[in-house]
């Protein structure tokens, strides 16, 4: 049952990804991309990462899609002359080679779901699982690591979001937020 679910997700994600690459109509691509993000969110949930899944659903499928749609609304959609993109052969060759390299490294990984070296290492990961609650009083270890142990990453992340706001003001040369 779980295997079937995994296979269906795998196929769904791959097909939607390929569809975004091959479809020519941009609005269609954005819609497919939203579906792809939802598929990824399900995949993350399946892999025991509910926090990541919720974030991907809210940010990837929600916010990113909205921003993409808004961009399309601000620009003009050209009606494509054909359905599919023409393949770019040199790029296909280059990235085909990259794929081979990646797969050659992939076989070195531990099997999915099999605790790898990282788990034999009684270092960081095990420490979090054993001590997160004691150290922070928070049951969700992800929150404990996010705001506690690696709080500085989260600080950086907050700064990135703030920077994005500033950057969009700079790029579009708007002063809309300086005065009422």
């Amino acid at each position, binding site marked *: 049952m779980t295997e079937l679910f995994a296979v269906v997700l795998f196929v769904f994600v791959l097909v939607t990804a390929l569809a975004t690459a091959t479809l020519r109509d941009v609005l269609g691509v954005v819609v497919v991309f939203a579906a792809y993000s939802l598929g990824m969110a399900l995949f993350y949930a399946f892999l025991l990462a509910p926090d990541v899944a919720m974030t991907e659903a809210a940010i990837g499928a929600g916010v990113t899609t909205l921003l993409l749609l808004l961009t399309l609304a601000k620009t003009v959609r050209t009606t494509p002359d054909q359905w599919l993109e023409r393949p770019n052969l040199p790029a296909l060759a280059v990235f085909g080679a990259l794929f081979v*390299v990646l797969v*050659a*490294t992939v076989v*070195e*990984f*531990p099997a999915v779901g099999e605790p*790898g*070296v*990282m*788990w*034999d*290492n*009684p*270092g*960081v*990961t095990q*420490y*979090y699982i054993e001590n997160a609650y004691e*150290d922070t009083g928070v049951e969700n270890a992800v929150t404990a690591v996010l705001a*506690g*142990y*690696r*709080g*500085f*990453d989260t600080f*950086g*992340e907050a*700064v*990135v979001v*703030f*920077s*994005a706001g*500033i*950057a*969009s*003001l*700079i*790029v579009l*040369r*708007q*002063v809309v*937020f*300086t*005065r*009422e």
Partner: protein
Amino acid sequence: MSEVVELALALLVVVPVLGATLPLALGLLRDQVGWAVAVAVLAVEAGLAARVAYDLAIEGSRVVHVLGGETFGRKSQELSSGESTEGFAVGIELVGDPLSGLVVALVAGVSLGVLAFARRSGPRGNAFYSGYLLLTGGLMGVALTGDLFNLFVFLEISGLTTYALVASGRSAPSAVAALKYLVLGTTGASMYLIGVGYIFVRTGALNMVDVSETLAGNVEFLDTEGALYGDPLVVAAFGFIAVGLATKAAIFPLHTWQPDAYAEAPDTVTVYISALASTAAAYALARVTWFVFTPAFFDAGAANRRVLEFLLVLAATSVVVGSALAAMQPRVKRMFAYSSVAQFGLIVIGIGVAVHPAAGEQATRFAVYGVGIHLVGHAVIKSGLFATAGALSAATGARRVGEYAGLARERPFLAGGMATLGFALVGVPPTVGFIGKWYVALGAVEAEHWPLVTVIFVSTVLSLLYMARVLEKLYFAGSPDATGEPAEEIAGSPGGAGGAVAADGGDTAESITGESADSDEPVTTDGGGSASLGMMALALTAAVLTVVLGFAGSELSAVLDPVVEAVVDAAPEVNP
């Protein structure tokens, strides 16, 4: 945990970020507060940086700030065998050492200095200065973080703000250049992240020291047979990290963003990012290559060595290609931008030579000196060149090499600065450009990498070629053939520039001259505009600084001695 310097490490990152919220908040009350806020914040920042850099670089100490304190700091753990481990970081550490001390001083100095230029040159607006401060904070984070993933976060902060600043001008091509930079920069950062992920799978750690120790097989808590250097995943990880950071440092063939971004960005932004954007990436590459992978990694197998040599080939190619393309550019900014591609190729050559198996201790020493000095030296030289070019174009409108004809008579000081900086770029003694290049070349000679030595020599000839072209136009070409440039201005401004030089006297108080420039500058209303005193001061200070730093070469290399020892020993200490 109350050492002043320890606390200052965190403040260096936090102060600009806090400062960045001010222009927006105050902007609700008043327009145009950005510049003043930036000056105030960066003056504080420069004070902190001076204090930190003194301890790190002059005293040669290694300072660690454990973010989150003891609870989130280093832990030791009881092993099944009954012993306890030496401790691993469960949080994030900021680490200051002599190398990061140099970069911290550079970032603080340049970001304060460029403000003098920005006062007149613009762009204005509160959002711009918020972005400027965020960029400074991001670069400080890159310089100081001791965590591989945190490095990614700060690379992205500095990247994101850089993309926006490139597009802060009015011109449409700048937006295209910024998007190109964004796409390539993000791809590079993601490549870096893939590498970090591979390392993480093998070691379970992200702290640079812990990863380095684990890779070396030194840590008892990891159940592996000795070092992990031969592991294909680790080798692949280095490949991804090197490609990612090389992209951000504009190494061939992924350098294409750099000429566009430098040439199309507003002058102020070009001055700033030419000094720091790629420098931060090259610094990160040096840090990861030297202290995480260490020379032992590259000696561990044929594959490891090949990956490093591949990186060296790319670096050498970008030296030649960058120099050659620079020689062909008619526009001054684009020419200097291509020259940066070559210079960062040189720096990456130094980074690679230092850890190459063929390098003895002496070769490593020279290469490390070369990288450290050239990182700082190139930043000063290149930002100075862009500042001079910016001041010249503000004063006369000249933006192409051809339009520089005879400008030396109109603008003797700027032309003199350009000449000094140009010689520094070529590598003529006694400038800092000479010392950096010389040490990198010496390192290559010691390690007997003759092709690299040849490449460095050829690039020197090429750079002499294109700088000579500029200087020949400036000094020996006839009267300006540009379209009716304001000749009536000659009387006033060069004198003003002379005053600036006299008052400036080679120290680094650009901000002071910048502010005085604002108050008593003569109002000129001609069509061509004029270079402000702040612009002149920055340009000329950079010129003076290249010579001063050149004479301080032995002091600079003394600063880097602890770094050399750390690379040679390949054993950065684990703080208790």
